């Protein structure tokens, strides 16, 4: 395969995580039901993105 999909996917989710999480941390909008869902979910997205990047790097090393 000529492009490992995990690279672009990892980068996209890290960026999504940073944007959504950052927005949650900075905006003063009332949190929904007492939770800052943007901040929380931004962290989840970022972690998934990093995991993808890690897998992609591991895959590239094995080749």
């Amino acid at each position, binding site marked *: 395969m000529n492009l490992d999909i995990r690279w672009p996917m990892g980068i996209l989710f890290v960026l999504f995580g940073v944007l*959504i999480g950052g927005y949650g941390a900075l905006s003063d909008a009332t949190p929904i039901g007492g939770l800052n869902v943007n901040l929380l979910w931004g962290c989840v997205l970022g972690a998934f993105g990093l995991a993808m990047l890690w897998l992609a790097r591991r895959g590239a090393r094995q080749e």
Partner: protein
Amino acid sequence: MIKLALIDWALLALYFAFVLGIGWWLKRHVRTSEDFFLSGRSMPAWVAGLAFMSANLGAQEVIGMAASGAKYGMATSHFYWVGAIPAMVFLAIFMMPFYYGSKARSVPEYLRMRFDEKTRGFNAISFAVMTVMSSGISMYAMGLLLNLLLGWDFNVSMWICAGIVLAYILLGGLTSAIYNEVLQFFLIVFGFLPLVLLGLRDIGGWSGLRSGLARVATDQGYASGAWSDSWQYLGSTTANPMGVEWFGLVMGLGFVLSFGYWCTDFLIIQRAMAAESMQAARRTPLVATVPKMLFPFLVIVPGMIAIALVHSGHGNFALPAKADGSLNYDLVIPVMLGRYFPNGLLGLGLTALIASFMSGMAGNVTAFNTVWTNDIYRPYIRPNASDSALLWMGRAATVVGVLLSLVAAYLAAAFNNIMDVLQLVFAFINAPLFATFLLGMFWRRANGHGAFTGLLAGTVVAAVHHGLTLPAHAVAGVKGGWLETMHIYPSEMAQNFWTAIFAFSGCFAVTVLVSLLFAAPERGTLRGLVYSETPHAAEESGSRWTRTTTLGLMALGAAVVLNLIFW
């Protein structure tokens, strides 16, 4: 109407940029027609598997399954645990060796190798028309939803999305489409999971949901578990909101419709044909069974939460009504997005929805350009086309396919009934298909004349059955009964299941009879195409635990456990 903030626009724009970027990156690797149509047969099983699952996961599926969750409750899971998993396992264990092993580039091409040219032509032409139509309907639904939800212009949103899809397929061919399907898969998971979590938190967890659903059921005159149990009330058609009984469900949905779709539809099989090896191709549907099994929690549960909230009056949750006063269940997902997601998450949810509309279109267009080029252009128009001519034709067919989809979208917008009728006709054509493949792969005596007349007969049987029956409370016409009403089914779903059962049986019987009237195919020609004529090379390498059969049985076992838990 939902108001977007800058952050939501930024997320959407970022996604578009990535999609186009991936296409641009892949462009330099598309050199031959096999690269364009089959990703050079280079996909690892997990990528092909997620694309396989995702190609079926159009936005209509997400929206429709949430709507069914609200309408029918937990029994909607039958579309997954009964109507998908067994067929996917069957495909992996029994059928994939012939699809992949025959080196056919498409499902119609397999039909030509196994039967004859006319059987292939029938399948190729009806399939090509159908893909363009469903991609048009997907675009139309997207334009309508974005207009309703965000006030975007119907035309502008449709043309922009079609333009992006066109660009990335032209650049990267099937690989682009597959990569975007994988991306879309994760977007749907991460875009809708918070919806389920926040919804469950709001309604008081699973037990809160169950007690809410008990009220939904008793309000409508059913036993209290009718919305939260999947099998309990399938003994009679009047005990469950679907209006089906277990036999029609298992045979119609679980066998004929599900095997007919998962084992013969080129749109999804193409993803497995693009796999890097026979083992990867066989694992493709098995990889897909894992998310497929878990998806009910992601797409059906939001609908169940929504209807429970409506009936409890909790937090003034309401679903908009349709013109006739009934609830518009198709708006479950949009209404829930607006209720639970703040700006930020909203952009993510919206991106997931748009991504799945676009990949629905891309999946259809890539299947269309392959079938057109490989099964219509090459055999009937230019038999000696060079590989570069085929590649060129594939790109041209992509442009034409996108344009035809837009035409279909405008047709759908202008004449709703025409689309209903066309969809019905294709349902008739599809209903008998699995009988043809089953006999083709496992009965060497079946021949081309038998297969072709069997397909025609099955289609006619489906049409006649539909013309003679009617769902309860429906008016004769597009819903059935256009010949004469001889039988009334308790629901449209029951009628669909039985139409499929009749079509399959008709096709099966006629294929067998006609095949016996004509000469058997020559023995030497069936190698690699028919079960009994194909030497079963020692199964794949690896331990007993990682073999296709073992993995398939494990998937089946897991589906049984899920059915038992939610019995």
